[in-house]
């Protein structure tokens, strides 16, 4: 099983500006001052080994879209944020003109989670089968609405793929292709649903756009049960804790610290911080990652929890 991140940003896509790139380059030059490199490969190896992540990478800017790759011909995708556009390019290239079957799981239908669908190339290929799964009654309405005039020039009826909407029931496991999928209700405006994906003894949790009320022990225990022993937990860590429970309380998102606590309760193995705040630059996001890792060290019980921050292009093999 492989998890591939096509979009990791929350709310709205962001992109590095020319000024951001110059700043990264200038900082890298300062850090490398006095060093000489005989080849591109030598310089590349230095950048990889010595420079901070936020200088050599970017956490990326597409809104949520995460692929779960398992053996077989079908595709499994969480959310259709703007990351669905590069995912579509990948699917078309891999299929080499053969129509694909794509299973999509929607956390909810806020715009940042569906905005990539009109740019998802396979949707325009006749013979492609797309099944959009979710627990919301208005799932189909939302997808059709964003492709209605005057919002978008290509209407739903012009799409070439056969598209089916599949209603899932919260907390009821369902077999979809080779995966067992269980949705779970989360606290977010208009509701959202997390998903537990299981296959071949491996478990991935996709839990974004989810606020956790810290005073509610029953809620924490229910999420710990939902995350129980997961190999990977993709978690809404949009804010630092102080922000999440003060000025941005009731905004429907969570923090890096609560992610660590819930994963520790659940004995999960790997926490992946996700749905990054669009106002945060790469250095800030790397800071939040380092803080989450340090909090995990300070509060570690008998099992270490690996903590990562998702970025567009990250792949995790299980």
């Amino acid at each position, binding site marked *: 099983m492989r998890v591939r991140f096509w979009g990791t940003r929350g709310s709205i896509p962001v992109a590095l500006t020319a000024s951001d790139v110059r700043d990264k380059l200038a900082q890298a030059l300062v850090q490398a001052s006095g060093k000489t490199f005989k080849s591109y490969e030598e310089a590349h190896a230095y950048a990889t080994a010595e420079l901070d992540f936020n200088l050599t990478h970017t956490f990326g800017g597409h809104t949520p879209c995460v692929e779960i790759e398992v053996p077989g011909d079908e595709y499994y995708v969480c959310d259709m944020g703007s990351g669905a556009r590069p995912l579509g390019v990948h699917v078309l290239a891999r299929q080499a003109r053969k129509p694909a079957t794509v299973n999509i799981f929607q956390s909810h239908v806020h715009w940042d989670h569906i905005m990539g669908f009109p740019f998802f190339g396979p949707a325009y290929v006749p013979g492609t089968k797309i099944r959009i799964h979710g627990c919301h009654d208005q799932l189909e309405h939302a997808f059709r609405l964003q492709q209605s005039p005057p919002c978008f020039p290509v209407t739903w009826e012009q799409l070439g793929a056969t598209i089916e909407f599949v209603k899932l029931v919260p907390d009821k496991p369902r077999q979809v292709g080779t995966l067992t999928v269980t949705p779970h209700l989360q606290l977010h405006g208009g509701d959202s649903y997390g998903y537990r994906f299981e296959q071949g003894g491996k478990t991935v949790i996709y839990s974004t756009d989810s606020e956790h009320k810290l005073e509610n022990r029953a809620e924490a225990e229910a999420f710990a049960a939902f995350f129980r022993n997961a190999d990977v937990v993709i978690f809404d860590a949009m804010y630092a804790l*102080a922000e999440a*429970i*003060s000025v941005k309380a009731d905004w429907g998102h969570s*923090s890096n610290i*609560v992610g660590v606590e819930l994963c520790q309760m659940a004995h999960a193995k790997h926490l992946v911080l996700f749905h990054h705040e669009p106002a945060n630059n790469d250095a800030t996001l790397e800071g939040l990652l380092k803080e989450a890792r340090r*909090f995990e060290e*300070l509060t570690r019980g008998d099992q270490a929890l690996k903590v990562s921050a998702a970025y567009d292009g990250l792949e995790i093999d299980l």
Partner: protein
Amino acid sequence: MNVTSRRFANAVVLHIDGRLDQDTCGAFTSELMKYVDSMAHGGGAVILDLSSLEYVSSAGLRCFMLASRQAKAQSGRIFVAALQPMVKEIFEISHFNLVFQVFPSIREALGAVSAEAAAAFDKG
């Protein structure tokens, strides 16, 4: 977890002993709010003496946040002081050091409240 209080002029110092987490935060919040209410009415301040606080979870930090909101709504003040290294680091990691005024010692926190509170502390 145990809470004891000492009054210094227009400030009350709450000494918090033990762990503050989901199991203890409910009772702690009720206790804390009583002091926040009573001090705010007198124009005073609450100082949280965290020298014996071993651990604070996100649920515990939320108690502090609720107390801070309550104090601000009543034009009161709330400070934290004398944090143990681990709790100090958790404050920084969670960015609570940006929300609260944190003082190295009780004496310094009392000095920020009023000269009378600091003098009362010095008298012992």
